[in-house]
């Protein structure tokens, strides 16, 4: 028995743009895992990635993702993935449009577009790789950097992070979920549900930047990061009175010496428009 090395390509190789790999992301970065979960989720829908789906990304580490997979895709200007996706969806409503971008892109420079997209209910799937930092530019504070953590632009304790789940619920998104990149087992199914939601679906995908943010703020290695995510995750209990949606119950806790201490995860809202 002899192995044919020409057949050893990755199981998802036909969905990857092989000539662009290996990607530019650092060792242990959650983005690669998230991207794989996305591709697996998209595959589960049974749709043709090339003809029926489009993946739009903004600028930043996450922005480069659309170049690595065989979705039709576009790498837009900083913060503008959502308006671009809105144009695509309204140009051709038969396409499933996925926005895959980062916390800085979607919620700092592009924050206004997010809340309006959620308000409008044009069918989009928005997946935010939320790693609490601007990685590509070297570790500046992002709108989801935690209090008392260190970044290259934190002068005093001036940070108070957005709770993206709370924000999405408030703005009116139809599907709101939060998981971490370490939930790679169930993420594809969550992503499939998000894509199939008729309306605005948002996933706050908690991710790690072990090379920059983690190193300074309590999760110095990728291994520790994955363990930390799983240990800190608490599946929400859906309550009749909706109290599981109160900001204090959706908020994450973070300790700069230990990493995450509480990550409420689960599907917070699911309604078709």
């Amino acid at each position, binding site marked *: 028995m*002899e*192995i044919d*090395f020409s057949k050893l390509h*990755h*199981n998802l190789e036909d969905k990857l743009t092989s000539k662009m*790999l*290996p990607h530019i992301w650092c*060792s242990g*970065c959650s983005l690669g895992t998230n991207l794989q*979960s996305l591709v697996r989720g998209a595959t589960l829908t049974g749709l043709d990635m090339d003809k029926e789906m489009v993946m739009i990304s903004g600028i930043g580490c996450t922005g480069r993702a659309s170049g690595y997979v065989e979705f039709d895709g576009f790498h837009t200007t900083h913060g503008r993935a959502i308006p671009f996706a809105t144009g695509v969806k309204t140009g051709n409503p038969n396409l499933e449009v996925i926005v895959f971008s980062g916390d800085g892109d979607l919620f700092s420079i592009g924050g206004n577009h997010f809340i309006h997209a959620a308000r409008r209910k044009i069918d989009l799937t928005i997946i935010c790789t939320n790693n609490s930092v601007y990685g590509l530019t070297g570790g500046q504070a992002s709108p989801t950097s935690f209090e008392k953590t260190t970044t290259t632009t934190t002068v005093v304790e001036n940070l108070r992070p957005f709770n993206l789940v709370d924000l999405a619920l408030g703005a009116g998104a139809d599907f709101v979920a939060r998981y971490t990149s370490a939930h790679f087992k169930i993420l594809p199914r969550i992503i499939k549900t998000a894509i199939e939601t008729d309306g605005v679906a948002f996933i706050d995908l908690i991710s790690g930047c072990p090379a920059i943010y983690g190193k300074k703020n309590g999760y110095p290695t990728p291994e520790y990061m994955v363990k930390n995510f799983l240990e800190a995750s608490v599946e929400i209990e859906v309550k009749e009175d909706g109290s599981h949606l109160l900001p204090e119950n959706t908020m994450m806790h973070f300790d700069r010496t230990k990493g995450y201490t509480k990550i409420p995860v689960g599907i917070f809202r699911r309604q078709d428009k």
Partner: protein
Amino acid sequence: MTELPVSHNKRFDAYVVGKRSNRVFVVDRDRCKGCRICVSVCPYEALAMSTDKTDRGYFYPVENGKCTACKQCLYACPDFVLSVHKVEEVVVGGDKQ
């Protein structure tokens, strides 16, 4: 055990694994960045890091015979390094396109 539990070429390490030795676990060394996530997520402690480095300067995972082809590491890998195939699909003369 088959006569060829592990094969290498310039890019890939292929391990024949699983209880019935019917799966091939593959490490694509070219893409590996040595993050060790695969080692940490493996439920069977089947992986360890190498002692030598890839051409790009990273340590990479090595299988130690305990792999059950459960695919946890494959899903966790951020760099599209790991994959699992059926043996018959990847041997010379196999039936996979």
